[in-house]
């Protein structure tokens, strides 16, 4: 859409929303949020940017095709399920954790990486779908 106002605002809303999405992702284990919502918020950020600036600009911004996030995220999630199998001979998807929490994020363990994988998959999926639709409109 040819609106300077939207365009300008979206440029500032994008980082804000992205930041917010990471925030939602990381706190998911303790408070409402998590990979899905985080991923959805992040996708919405890019969608907004695309509405305002046109699809090609947003794609340039992303540098890679959004579809790339899908296998990447899947690998991360699946990998965090594998970690206990490979590392400790435990059943698939068993949570393995570092001993001490780190500030801001809290405990670091395989479920966290799993959730991050979810986050990326959701971004990849939403953006692939919406971008594809827009392009073929």
């Amino acid at each position, binding site marked *: 859409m040819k609106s300077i106002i939207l365009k300008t605002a979206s440029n500032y809303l994008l980082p804000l929303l992205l930041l917010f999405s990471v925030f939602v992702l990381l706190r998911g284990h303790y408070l409402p949020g998590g990979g899905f919502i985080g991923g959805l918020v992040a996708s919405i950020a890019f969608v907004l940017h695309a509405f305002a600036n046109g699809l090609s600009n947003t794609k340039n911004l992303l540098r890679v095709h959004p579809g790339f996030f899908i296998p990447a995220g899947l690998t991360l999630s699946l990998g965090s399920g594998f970690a206990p199998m490979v590392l400790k*001979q435990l059943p698939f998807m068993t949570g393995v954790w570092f001993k001490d929490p780190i500030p801001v994020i809290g405990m670091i363990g395989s479920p966290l990486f799993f959730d991050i994988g979810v986050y990326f998959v959701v971004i990849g999926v939403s953006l692939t779908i919406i971008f594809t639709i827009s392009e073929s409109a």
Partner: protein
Amino acid sequence: MTTNFIIYPILYQAITAILLMFFWRNPKTQRLLSILSSSFGLVLAVSLFVFIWQNGTTALQAGNWAAPFGITMVADTFSASLVVLTHIVALAASIYSSEKVISSRIKFGYFPIFHLLIMGLTGAFLTGDIFNLYVWFEIIIISSFVLLTLGGRHHQIEGAVKYFTLNMLASIIFLTAIALLYGITGSLNMAELSVIIPQIENKGLVQLIAIIFFTGFGIKAGVFPLYFWLPASYHAPPAAVSAVFGGLLTKVGVYALIRVFTLIFDLDEFNSTLIMVTAALTLLSGGLGALVQKDIIKVFSYLIICHIGFMIAGLSMNSQVALIGAVFYMFHDIIIKSNLFLISGLTSSIMGSSKLEKMGGLLNAYPKISLLIAIPLFALVGIPPLSGFWPKLSLFGASLSSGNYTLLAFMIFASFITLFIIARIWNQVVAKPKPGKFPENGFNTYSFKQKAAFIVPIILLSLVTLYISFGAEHIQILAERISNELLNTEQYYQAVFKTINP
């Protein structure tokens, strides 16, 4: 030692799919990778089966959360066998796809999704959690849906709309049933449900929920009057995909029905009558439908429905013999139906059409192929001693000994109509002279590799059929053991609740 190996076949397909995604634009690599990994997947599946055969039902508590708190994956003989069959079909379809599926489809994710479909099927067979089963079903739906539409041709879209809507409806009904089940039991673990359900006093409510389950699975299994999505869509995708659809998709529904109605719900008078009536009408309407179709793929589609009736009939009679028949029939049917769709793909490509009136001349032009396809065709009919014959012994026997003569009549009718239809197909495709000419860039012009990709999977599946036929004793013993396990739910329960890993 953990029991992680139960889900190796699942994880393996997932890894394959992801790997294939990374080779998105490279059809050659994808083809090779797919065949290689399908072969290795089969090895994994077989070794799983061997383990289960030797050690009995085994469970994996995912996440190391003791049942019923996490998701339990359970491999018993039934599911392990089905996993093996799935992987056999997958290998065949994979080889078949390697030349038959055009590279533009491959560049749009054909192979990753194909492997995810296989993963979904495997998962559905192995899960011991009712909601998890729903999730696996969704994998199956979405991947089959994508494979169905890939290419986006007119008939594909039309088929897909129906396929999608009715399968979504099935999922919604299934999920409704799960919700209600959770509402009365507070559990999702199938082994635990098998213990809780009998203790519930409100039997009527349990039965209503059972009906909803039956409807949901019935749509997937393609029983009367819920099968409409099947004939409307199976002709749409490439033959390799139809093969997986034809062989396995409905069988997952049948599997779910058998599992749920042996493990969780009682097959009491009402349920078994309901299922029996359904089975009879399925046999009838599938047969009638197949009789009037003029396109080979549609004939096969209706025959799928018709023959689902046999398995459902086996379930409905609620006896060990009948269950043996149902299970045996299922094994036979998976291989046969997959093979038939591969064959329909082969013959259509030889003839340039899948319409029966435009086909013909196979016997004179391709005698060896004719002999090859005679095996599955007549095995489908149940010409003894080919594979379709054996389960009928148990099914007919069970209906005779339990006095279900009407059901027997329907089974005889279905067998007869199948015989007639297949004989007619034989006449029209194989024996009759070809009307018009064979297409110019037809089968004969293919390279050796292309021909092999066509023929090898059919040979592979036909060999399996021959094994089922002449090694019927093995399959019979297998089916007996499966029916034992299905009827003695205690064993399943023990397997799920004993294994708490160190």
